[in-house]
């Protein structure tokens, strides 16, 4: 059981209600704008978490024709969680590290 909600970490419906963004893949050309708009819509102070190798360095999708770059190329990333896929306990551990 890796239930992160028991730690008070919850998925919300809108970035207006969020404390941070979690990006789980490479940034495609179509999603550059929405990613930046989403970050702008999140109230500060905010954190960006890049989850998995795909988000960190595009992983298997690197140099794909639709891929524009990694998350860090477009928005400032605060926490990186490597792995393909990352271990669930590693995700929970990284999130717990954020909330102290």
């Amino acid at each position, binding site marked *: 059981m890796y239930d992160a909600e028991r730690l008070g970490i919850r998925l919300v419906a809108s970035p*207006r209600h969020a404390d941070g963004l979690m990006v789980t893949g490479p940034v495609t050309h179509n999603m550059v704008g929405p990613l930046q*708009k989403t970050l*702008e819509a999140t109230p500060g102070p905010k954190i960006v978490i890049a989850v998995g190798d795909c988000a960190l360095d595009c992983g298997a999708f690197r140099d794909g024709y639709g891929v524009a770059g990694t998350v860090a190329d477009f928005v400032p990333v605060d926490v990186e969680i490597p792995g393909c896929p990352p271990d669930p306990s590693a995700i929970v551990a990284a999130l717990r590290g954020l909330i102290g």
Partner: protein
Amino acid sequence: MSAGTWGLAFAAAAGGIGTIAALVTVGPTRRWLVGILSGLSAAAGGATAILVLVGHGPVTVHLPQILPLAGVELNLDALGAVFVLAVAIVALPASIYGIGYTAHGLNRRSVQAMYPLFIVSLLLVPAAASVSTLLLLWEAMALTSLVLVAAEHRDRSEVREAAWWYGSMSHLSMIAILMALVVFAGHAPGETFEALRMSGRHLSSSTRSFVFVLSLVGFGTKAGVVPLHVWLPRAHPEAPSHVSALMSGAMVNLGIYGVLRVTWDLLGGGPIWWGITVLFVGVTSALFGILHALVARDLKRLLAYSTSENMGLILVAVGAAGIYSSSGNPMLAGVAITAALLHIVNHAAFKGLLFLGAGSVVAATGTRDLDRMGGLLARMPVTGAAFAVGSLAIMALPPFNGFVSEWLLLKSLVQGLPASSVAISVTMPIAVGAVALTGGLAAAAFAKAFGTGFLARPRSPQVEAAAEVGGTMQTGMVSLAVACLGLGLAPFALLDVLRRAGAALPSLWGGEPVRSVGVTLHTGGLTGSLSPLFIGGGLILLVVLIPVVLRLLGVAGRRRVAENWGSGRSLQTARMEYTATSFAEPLQRVFDDVLRPEFDLAVTHTAESRYYVEAVRYRVGIVDGFETHVYRPLIRVAKRWGEMSRWVQNGSIHRYLAYLFVALLIVLLVSQ
């Protein structure tokens, strides 16, 4: 002649001169003369009502020459004066508003000539003191308003249809009132209210119940209670807006006046089931009215259904008063009837204001469809602010006037609960629940009306181009908004004079139900007090204070201009805003069983692939269940009956001679 008599005479004369002026003048002169003279008439009526209410005694006029046989009997007592005051509160601003409003194609002779007469009839109906005078004035009121409803009959077929519905329903109601009062007068020594009042208590109980039921049906139709309301959501939206304001703010009240006058004054009150009947009629109207207001897309239709709802709330108070007085609790009955009378005056102010606001929107944009509006607050700041005040008042929020009367209403219902009587302990919880639910839904309905109409961005080009209305229209709206605030902050002034109105209904009044000590209201015999001035003043202070404190702390002022959150999409248009329909949709689902919406969803695909959607069409229509399931079948039956009579009356002279012969034979046989 006393001052009050002069007041009534002046009101009637100003109205009459207004009508003549409308007939003989043209152009802007006509608009101004009609507006000013109607306003003077309303002001004179209002002044007379205030004179009566502050204790100058009733105004009595006896004019034997005017009406053959019976003569005209007028007697404005304190009960009638409350209703005259409610009429004047709407009629004076509506007349000023009308000067500017009628410039938009309504400055026709027929319309302008009827308007002052309508106001005079509204002012005089509560002063009628005999059956024939009441019926005469009632009919004058119905006919003048019918002409005004049909004002735009050349332009739109809906207006003609609305006028038909209104004319038919008001004549059916007239028949019911006529039957009730004629039977009543037949059992009394005369037809003056004095005579009826003396004999009212001594009639047989079946006659009394007959008069009660028929007068409830007749006057209830005018008040727009469910299921006799069908004309109201048709006629009020189609009438010119200053007339809608008068009809919704003033005319429907007179239905309540009729119920109070006949049942609890002339008949002197009755068994407990009268009160229970009135209460349940009120509960049904309140809930049904507000549910339809909630889902209405047409701004004026929304307001019209809300009128049905408010008349329902007033009847709940009247019914509760009847129940309390029949079960020997006159003090509580007094609190309930105070709530009813106060709500009548308050409803006149805020519903008049809302209809005038809606009229300005219609004049500026040419549409009544909320789904096409939006962003009007920026384009029409005065209208927007006035509509906001009206919405807050009708939501019963302090510091505006709806709050005080709804507080008193709930108070009177809740305080009856620890009661020994079975009738009270069964009906009052239902009434409290219904009133509370109505209040919540009313807040949602008017959040929708103001939110989708005035906030956000315009949803159609003609709304985008809207501009603020002229000075006279603004004056009308602002003065009613000030009235809403004044009545909300200082209801004491009115509550003190309502005592005299209560004294005119001895069967519903006991002790001193609502006292005001300084600026605090106390309900007699009950715990609890309320100080609207402190609550309202405190709220206003908070609203002013919070931004000031925030600015001093340096928190305010840090502003960031950003795009609305649109799920990250790059194209955002006004079409993606919440509309009135989508705002009401969740509640529409909840109340599916009552509203029975008809909707269809049609998705068309492109020719190349059915995975690509070409267009999505969503249509939702909500029809009034009473109209389709009760009135339409009745109309069909009436039509068939009419067609059958055509067979009897086919124009053949031979057949008519045969009828004459048979009729003569029958008469001879019967008279044997």
